[in-house]
C-alpha cells in the first residue's frame, strides 16, 4: 500500500472539517475525489501536503511505510508526495529555474543522487517544457508572475514532471481551465502515469476525469467518504447530482 488513511480528523480555526476519513491507495492507482463545495476535498489535499494551518486531531496517515503526519511539508515532498495547488502562488524575483533546480536537487539529495548543475538541469527540463507546451522563456521568468490561470496550473504539472513523485495530489487542477489548457494538463498527467505512481485527483467536474479515466471514484461529503465506486460513479453523479447519494448515506 502506498497510502493508508485511517479515521482522519482535522480542523481549521477550531472548526472540524475532516470527520473520520478512510482511504487506501496502491501504487499505480488513480483515485478521484468528488463532492459538493465545503465537503473537505481541499482540506484533505492540504492536510496530506502538511499545511500547518490545519490541525490533525485524530487518525493516521501512512505513506510508503512511514508516518506522514510526523513529517514537515518539505520532507513529505522529498519523499515523493506532490501537491498541485488549486491556486499556485506567485513568487516575484525567484526564477522558475532557481526554484525548480533547488527543489529537484533537494529531492535528489534525499535519494542519494548528485545535484544537477545548471546545464544538466536545462537538459533535464527541456522535454518537460515541450510536453506542457510552456513558453520557452519559462525558466528565466519569476515563478507564476504574470502567468494566466491556465499557465499557472500547467507550471504546477511541469513541476510535477520534474520532481517525479510517487503520489500526485491534484487539488482542482482543472478548475478555471479552458479546453486547450485542460487537454495539456491531462496529457501531462497521462504522460506521468506509471505502475509505481499513484494519483489523487480532487475535482468538481467530469471533464478532466474523461481524459484520465480514474480507477476509483469517491464521494466526499461532510468530512467523510460516503460512497466509493469505479469510473461509472462519475456518470451517475453527473446524472443525479450529489443529493441522491447524500440521502442514501443518511
Amino acid at each position: 500500500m502506498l497510502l493508508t488513511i485511517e479515521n482522519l480528523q482535522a480542523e481549521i480555526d477550531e472548526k472540524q472539517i475532516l470527520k473520520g476519513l478512510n482511504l487506501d491507495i496502491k501504487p499505480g492507482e488513480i483515485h478521484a475525489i468528488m463532492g459538493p463545495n465545503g465537503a473537505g476535498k481541499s482540506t484533505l489535499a492540504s492536510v496530506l501536503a502538511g499545511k500547518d494551518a490545519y490541525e490533525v486531531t485524530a487518525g493516521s496517515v501512512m505513506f510508503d511505510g512511514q508516518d506522514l503526519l510526523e513529517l514537515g511539508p518539505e520532507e513529505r515532498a522529498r519523499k515523493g508526495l506532490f501537491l498541485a495547488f488549486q491556486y499556485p502562488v506567485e513568487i516575484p524575483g525567484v526564477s522558475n529555474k532557481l526554484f525548480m533546480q533547488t527543489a529537484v536537487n533537494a529531492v535528489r539529495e534525499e535519494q542519494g543522487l548528485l545535484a544537477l548543475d545548471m546545464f544538466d538541469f536545462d537538459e533535464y527540463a527541456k522535454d518537460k517544457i515541450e510536453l506542457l507546451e510552456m513558453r520557452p522563456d519559462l525558466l528565466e521568468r519569476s515563478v507564476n508572475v504574470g502567468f494566466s490561470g491556465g499557465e499557472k496550473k500547467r507550471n504546477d504539472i511541469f513541476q510535477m514532471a520534474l520532481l517525479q513523485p510517487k503520489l500526485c495530489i491534484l487539488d482542482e487542477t482543472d478548475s478555471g481551465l479552458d479546453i486547450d489548457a485542460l487537454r495539456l494538463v491531462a496529457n501531462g498527467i497521462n504522460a506521468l502515469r506509471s505502475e509505481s505512481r499513484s494519483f489523487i485527483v480532487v475535482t468538481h467536474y467530469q471533464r478532466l476525469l474523461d481524459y484520465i479515466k480514474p480507477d476509483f471514484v469517491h464521494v466526499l461529503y461532510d468530512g467523510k467518504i460516503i460512497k466509493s465506486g469505479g469510473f461509472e460513479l462519475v456518470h451517475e453523479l453527473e446524472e443525479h447530482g450529489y443529493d441522491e447519494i447524500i440521502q442514501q448515506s443518511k
Partner: protein
Amino acid sequence: MLKKNTRKISPMAKAAVSHYIEASEQLNKESAQEEVVACRTRAQALLLTQAFPTLRDEAWQYTKLVQFVQNRFEVAHLTPQQHGLTIREVQSFLPPYQAIKLIFVDGVLDKALSDDCTALPKGLSIEFTREAVQSSSEVEVWLEQEDLVNSEPFGVLNNALLAEGFGLKVAENMAIETPVFVLNIQTKLNQISVLSNRVMVGKNAELTLVEHFVTLLNEAEQEGVEACTNVVTVMDIAESARVRQVVLQQQSDLGYYFHNQFIFQSEQSDFNSFYGGLGSQLSRHQNHLFMNGERIENSQNSACLAHQKQLVDSRTNTQHTQEWGASRQLHKFVLADSAVGVFDGMIGVARAAQKTDGQMDNKNLLLSNTAKMNSKPQLEIYADDVKCSHGCATGQINQDQIFYLQARGISKPKATEMITKAFLMESVETIDRKDIQQWVAQEFSEALLSGAYFKTDTATE
C-alpha cells in the same frame, strides 16, 4: 550682542562640541590655506550654537544620537598612526572586477596600498583633500558649497574637520571605463574618520564610482566603542555627463556611519546611484540632489539589511527645477530582530519643472514582530503638468509563498532566504553594470546565508 539662540544644549553635548572644536583648532595649527582655516572656524561657530540634533528635531526623531554624542570619537587623521595593513589583509574587501583602487585606512589615504595615481587613464585626474587643503589652487572646489554642506549637522562637523578625502575630475568628453573603487577601512576603536570628497564630471564625460566602507579591527584592541565614519561628497555632473555610483556600507555592526551627498546635475545628464547598507549600529545615508537643467535623468536606489538593534536611515531629497526631468527611486529594507529602518524621501517639483516624471517607491520586509519601519515619502509639487508618484508598503513574508516552496521539497530556512534575497535583488539589479551588480549581489547573499538574519540550513544543522 544678544545671541538669537533658543537651543538648549545638554552638558554631554557641550562636552562633545568642545572636543571636536578642539580637534578642529588643532588642525588649524597645521599647515593649511587661509580659506580652509576660515571655513573650519565658521563650522566651529555653527557647532557651538547648534551642537548635535536631538529627538526633538524632526529629521532626527527616529535616529538617536545620544550614544554618538557620549562617545566623543578621536579624530583619526589628527594623529595618523601606523596600521601595518598589507595588501593581502585587505584583499577580501577588494572587488573581483578591474578598478582603479584608492584605499583609505582610518580616514587617511594609504598611498602604498592604493593604485599608482600618476598612471591614470587619460581624462581622469585625482587630487587628495590633504594636498588641496595645504597648498593646491584647486582648494576652491572643496569650499564652493560650504553653506550647503553646513545645512546638515554632520556636514558642519565635516567642514570643521576638513582635511582628508579625495577629489576626482573627469575631463570633457572622456568616458572612464574602469571604475574608481574607494575602500575605506576602519582598524581602530573609538575614532572618527572624516572624509570630504569632491567629484567633478565634465561635459559628456562618464564615470563609475564605487565606495566600500568596512571594518577590520586589530584583534589586540578589545576595549572601546567602534569607529565612526563621516563623509561628505559633493558631486558636480556637467551637461550630458553620465555618473554611476555604488556605495556599499559594510562596517561592523557596532560602528557609526553618516554620509551626506550633495549632487548637482546639469542638463541631459544622467546619475544612477545605489546604496547598499548592511553594517553599523547607526547609519544614515543622504542624497541631496539638485536637477539644475532640462531633460535630466537619475535613479537613486537602495537596499538595506539590518538585524539586532541596528538602525538604518536612508534619505533622499530630489529637486526638479526644470522641464522634462525624470527621477526614479526604489528603496528596499529588510529588518530582522529589533532593527529599525528609517526612510525619508522628498521629491520637489518647482514651478518651472513642467513635464517632470518622478517616481519613488519604498518597500519593506519585516522578518520579526519586533522590527520597526518608519517611512515618509513626500511630494511637493508647484508645477501643474507633471507625473509624480510615491508609495510605501511594509509587510512580512507571505506564508503561502513559503509553503509553496516547502511543498516542492525546499526547507523553510532556504525558502525564507530565497524570498528575502529576491526582495532585495529588485533594487540591486538596478545597478546597470553587471560586474558590479554581481559583486553587490554576492555580498548580500553571503550576509543572508550567514544565519544572522534568520535561521539558515547550515545554521540549524
